[in-house]
C-alpha cells in the first residue's frame, strides 16, 4: 500500500444534486469514486494523482434500472452484478449481461459500476464494446443540466472522453430493438477468468433475405478506444455469409484496428484473433440462421 491516507480527502454528500453542486463549485477539483475497483488500485499503487475524492457509490438516483416501452435506462451506478441479475438486461441485452460476467471475479462485479468503467475509459474494458454494438446513448448530468449523446462519440482518444469536469454519467440508455438479432460476445484474456482482455468482441447481426443486414461489430483492446468496426460492417452488410466472406471479413477486421504490443500481448496476435473472432461470429450467425 503505497499511498498515505492522511493525504487524501473523501467526501460523501449522499445525493446526486449535492455531488453535482460540489463538482460545479470546483470543476476538476474532486474525483468521483463509485465502487473503487479502478481508482483504489491506482491509489494503492501510489499512482493516484487526485487528492480529493467524492463518493458516488450507491447513490439511489444512479443505481436504478428503468424499463420503459422502447428503452432501458441503466443507472451509471449499477454494478455488474446488478446488470447480470436484471431480467430484461439478461434477456434483451445479452451482450451486456455476458460481458458483465467476465468483468473480474464476483467481488469486483459486486462493486464495479458501468458508469465507472465508461469514465475510466480503459480500451480493454469488457462491456464497453457491447454498449457500442447496441448504439447506446449516454445521459450526462451536471449542475448545469442534462445532455444526451451517442456513446459512440464519447471516447475521443486513449483515456480521453467528452465528459466535462463538472459532469457525471447519469445513465446509459439502450433501445429495446435488438431481440431479433443474433448476439455473440467473446473475450480473450490471459486466462479464463479474472483477466484483462487482450481482445474482446461484442457483435450483433441478423440475416434478411439471405444476406447480412445491420451487422454490428464492436471490439476492445485493439485501439486506444473501444471501437466499432464500421468499415468492416459496411462491407459485410448486404452480403451472403460464405467461406469467401469469412476470409475477407477476417482481413478487413484485422486491418481496421490499431492494436499495439504491450505487457499483455502483441499487435500481431490481437490482429489475427480479432479477425478470427469476427469470422467466428459470422459463421455462428449463419449456422443459427440455417438451423431455423
Amino acid at each position, binding site marked *: 500500500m503505497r499511498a498515505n*491516507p492522511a493525504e487524501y480527502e473523501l467526501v460523501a454528500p449522499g445525493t446526486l444534486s449535492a455531488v453535482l453542486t460540489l463538482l460545479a463549485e470546483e470543476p476538476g477539483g474532486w474525483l468521483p469514486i463509485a465502487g473503487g*475497483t479502478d481508482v483504489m488500485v491506482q*491509489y494503492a499503487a501510489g499512482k493516484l494523482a487526485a487528492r480529493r475524492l467524492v463518493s458516488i457509490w450507491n447513490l439511489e438516483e444512479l443505481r436504478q434500472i428503468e424499463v420503459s416501452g422502447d428503452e432501458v435506462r441503466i443507472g451509471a451506478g449499477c454494478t455488474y452484478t446488478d446488470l447480470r441479475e436484471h431480467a430484461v438486461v439478461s434477456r434483451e441485452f445479452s451482450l451486456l449481461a455476458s460481458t458483465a460476467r467476465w468483468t473480474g471475479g464476483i467481488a469486483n462485479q459486486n462493486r464495479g459500476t458501468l458508469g465507472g468503467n465508461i469514465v475510466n475509459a480503459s480500451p480493454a474494458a469488457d462491456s464497453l464494446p457491447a454498449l457500442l454494438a447496441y448504439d447506446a446513448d449516454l445521459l450526462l448530468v451536471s449542475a448545469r443540466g442534462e445532455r444526451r449523446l451517442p456513446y459512440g462519440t464519447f471516447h475521443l482518444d486513449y483515456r480521453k472522453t467528452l465528459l466535462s469536469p463538472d459532469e457525471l454519467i447519469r445513465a446509459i440508455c439502450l433501445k429495446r430493438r435488438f431481440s431479433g438479432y443474433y448476439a455473440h460476445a467473446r473475450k480473450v484474456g490471459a486466462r479464463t477468468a479474472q483477466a484483462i482482455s487482450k481482445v474482446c468482441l461484442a457483435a450483433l447481426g441478423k440475416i434478411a433475405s439471405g444476406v447480412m443486414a445491420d451487422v454490428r461489430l464492436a471490439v476492445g483492446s485493439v485501439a486506444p478506444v473501444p471501437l466499432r468496426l464500421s468499415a468492416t460492417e459496411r462491407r459485410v452488410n448486404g452480403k451472403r455469409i460464405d467461406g469467401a466472406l469469412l476470409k475477407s471479413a477476417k482481413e478487413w477486421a484485422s486491418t481496421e484496428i490499431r492494436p499495439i504490443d504491450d505487457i499483455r500481448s502483441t499487435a500481431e496476435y490481437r490482429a489475427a484473433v480479432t479477425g478470427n473472432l469476427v469470422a467466428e461470429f459470422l459463421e455462428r450467425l449463419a449456422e443459427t440462421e440455417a438451423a431455423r
Partner: protein
Amino acid sequence: MRDSEHQHGKRDISFQVNGRSVTVHAHAMERLLDVLRHELGLTGTKEGCGEGECGSCSVLLDGVLVNSCLVPVMQAQGSEVRTIESLSASGRLHALQQAFLECGGAQCGICTPGMILAACQLLDKNPRPNIDEIREWLSGNLCRCTGYTQILEAVEEAARRGATG
C-alpha cells in the same frame, strides 16, 4: 469548502461488524481492510495483493462479497460487514469450515478466510450449485497451494450437507 490541506483529518465512521456496532476514528480513504485488521483487531482478513486480484481480503459488505482492499472505509459507513470471524462466533464451526477441514480445502490457510466467505455468499444465493457454478464463482479467489480441486470438493460437500450462507 475545503482548501487543499496537506493532511486531512480523521473522522468517526460507524458501521456494523459481525453483528456489533463499531465506530472507528480513521481517515476516509483508509482501506476497509486496514481498518478491520488494525483498528478492530480482526486479523482473519488478509492482504495478498492490494489490487483486488487474489480475494484474500474478501469480506461480506451488506451481504455481498467485496475485496476490502478496494473499499475506502468511508463507504462502509452505515453498512454491515461480515468477516471470517463471524462464522464460528458461537464456537461451532460453520458447515463450510468443517468441510474445508475434512476435504483439504485449506493448506497454508492464507486464502482460506476469503475463499470460505466467497463460498458462503454462493450457498446463500444458490444452495445447490453444480461444480461449474462453484468453479466460476470462486474464480476471483486465488489459491496457490491446492490447485482448487479440494476446495471445490469442500464446497460441494458443504452444499450436500445442506449448508447455506
